[in-house]
């Protein structure tokens, strides 16, 4: 029974499925915004909202009581707050990679997922930013982080990577937002022209800034868009490099290593692609029309990028172990022995299994092409990357030099509620985004459709012969 039609899998699958034309592309993607959401949207949004309230409650309690409610203390001053910061900001990096670097590399498969992952970037950086801001202990004085003239006549210390972080992360957030909005302008114009209601017309019209698709405008637009991509590329590499320098410039065993910047950047992209898959699979179920644009081809490519960056990260793990022994320094050697056999060895070996072992399944097409397995692996990588940050940050700190200064660290209930709260906040923001903004760049999809099928079909919506009927393919694949 299964042998009747075998849908093309992996990179054999087309980038756009089904019979499409400019109108159907606009209607399917834009329609999500302009029509009422599917029933399931409400409970899922409500769940995200409820979890966000847990986060808000935690923050209020933190402001009342101070960071003593967290588990951090001497000698482990960097706990969940910094772990979660690094974890979230790493997740954001895949969005910029997809939207900027893959644009410069002319990868056509980026078009279906760039808007979606840019949104993911922005929300992930929002989650990330909360942690260090609250970790300062007195968040109402956070403006001291910026070089503003003040009554103390004091200035920030620009020779510290912690301050570089302030600039790197705030620039990253701002530029990601600009890039995202630039991409949205023509799509808001499409929605403005399709909206039936006055309010929708007014909002979309305002956000589109009166875009009318003039050829002269497109010329400058493309130039600006390409330049923004070119600017975002070194930016994204700098952000996680600077984050890693927070550790690498210190003298803590396990932190003081030169491999950190590339190792962190690879880990960031690894975590980010895992999160894109984690989001894309359920969103394709909630909005079945997305299956025409986020096809097996895209899933396969993302799985391959995840595998490749995972191997770089795994190389980093091996190097950490190697140079600890090779250093002939007793503190460095003890650091890795402590990771292997110390009180936190469980997290270390769980990390090796999550990030080193299980993702190797992606070498095999049967796992890459099976969404159930792919989703499972992406979840395992999400957990693995969090464990990696835990091992690097807290496990390195808990036993550094003199045994009299050793200690133990565990997150309290408030650490956990803050962490889980940000996950729900992230989910809530993604659902709001799906509801109110086009999840796929509509004008870029039209352009891609034109490039792929130009000349092979008329303009009347006849897809070329080799594109299978989406209804057949998608129903088989999900059965």
């Amino acid at each position, binding site marked *: 029974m299964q042998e009747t039609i075998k849908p093309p899998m992996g990179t054999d699958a087309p980038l756009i499925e089904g019979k499409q*034309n*400019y*109108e159907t592309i*606009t209607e399917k993607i834009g329609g999500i915004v302009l029509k009422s959401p599917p029933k399931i949207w409400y409970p899922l949004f409500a769940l995200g909202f409820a979890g966000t309230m847990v986060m808000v409650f935690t923050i209020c309690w933190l402001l009342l009581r101070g960071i003593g409610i967290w588990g951090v203390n001497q000698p482990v001053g960097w706990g969940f707050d910094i772990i979660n910061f690094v974890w979230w900001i790493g997740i954001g990096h895949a969005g910029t990679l997809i939207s900027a670097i893959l644009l410069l590399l002319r990868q056509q498969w980026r078009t279906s997922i760039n808007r979606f992952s840019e949104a993911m970037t922005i929300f992930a950086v929002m989650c990330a930013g909360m942690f260090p801001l609250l970790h300062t202990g007195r968040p109402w004085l956070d403006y001291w982080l910026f*070089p503003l003239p003040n009554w103390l*006549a*004091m*200035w*920030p*210390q*620009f*020779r510290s*990577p912690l*301050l*570089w972080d302030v*600039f*790197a992360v705030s*620039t990253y957030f*701002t*530029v990601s937002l*600009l*890039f995202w*909005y*630039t991409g949205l302008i*023509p799509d808001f*114009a*499409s929605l403005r*022209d*399709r909206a039936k209601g006055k309010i929708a017309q007014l909002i979309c*019209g*305002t956000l589109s*800034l*009166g*875009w*009318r*698709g*003039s*050829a*002269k*405008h*497109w*010329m*400058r*637009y*493309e*130039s*600006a868009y390409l*330049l*923004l991509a070119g*600017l*975002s590329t*070194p*930016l994204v590499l*700098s952000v996680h490099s*600077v984050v890693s320098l927070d550790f690498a410039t210190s003298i803590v065993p396990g932190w003081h290593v030169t491999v950190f910047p590339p190792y962190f950047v690879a880990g960031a992209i690894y975590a980010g692609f895992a999160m894109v898959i984690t989001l894309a699979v359920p969103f394709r179920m909630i909005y079945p029309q997305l299956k025409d644009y986020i096809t097996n081809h895209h899933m396969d490519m993302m799985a391959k990028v995840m595998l490749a960056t995972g191997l770089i990260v795994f190389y980093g793990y091996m190097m950490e172990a190697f140079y600890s022994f090779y250093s002939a320094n007793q503190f460095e050697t003890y650091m890795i022995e402590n990771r292997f056999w110390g009180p936190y060895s469980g997290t270390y070996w769980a990390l090796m299994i999550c990030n080193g072992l299980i993702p190797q399944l992606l070498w095999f097409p049967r796992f890459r092409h099976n969404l159930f397995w792919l989703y499972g692996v992406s979840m395992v990588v999400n957990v693995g990357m969090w464990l990696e940050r835990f091992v690097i940050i807290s496990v390195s700190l808990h036993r550094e030099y003199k045994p009299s200064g050793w200690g133990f660290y565990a997150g309290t209930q408030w650490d956990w509620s803050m962490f889980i709260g940000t996950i729900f906040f992230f989910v809530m923001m993604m659902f709001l985004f799906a509801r109110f903004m086009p999840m796929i760049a509509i*004008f870029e999809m*039209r*352009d891609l459709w*034109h490039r792929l099928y130009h000349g092979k079909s008329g*303009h009347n919506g006849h897809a070329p012969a080799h594109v299978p009927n989406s209804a057949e393919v998608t129903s088989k694949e999900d059965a």
Partner: protein
Amino acid sequence: MAHGPIEPQYHGVMAEFETPEQVMEAAEKTRSAGYKQFDCYSPFPIHGLSDAMGVEEAKVPWAVFIGGFIGALSGMALQIYVNSYDYPMNVGGRDDLSWPYFIPVAFEVTILFAAFSALLSMLGLNGLPRPHHPVFNVPEFARASTDRFFLCIEAQDPKFDLQGASDFLKSLNPLSVSPVSND
């Protein structure tokens, strides 16, 4: 009637096409017919269309370069003023003017200024935001953001006269030709 009277009540005349190839061809013909003030409208960027129209401009890249340059200078100047001059601080015995330490922040400020220059120069040169424009008065133009391609010869063109431009556009085999009124 080489220099026909400019018609104040019209923005121009607009022709509607069905494919990007047609509008590209129409743009080439319009240009060779001697029209200078015309514009095309499409739901996505068409490569080569600005060349076909004979429009060339590279102001956005220059704006980005200048923005980035100002960013680099001001990022560096800020740090030198703050950490070397106004409040010098001994950090691990480093020089007051330890400029290599100022590069990361100067780099971030460069990117920030350049990115703002990219978006703002693009919008500024395009004359956006502009909520209304005469082309929106043409009912067919509602599809310009979905699946139709337009070419509009503008009344400012010295060669423009309503009848002549309409006849010319009709010869390009469009779906429709409509005058674009100013209000």
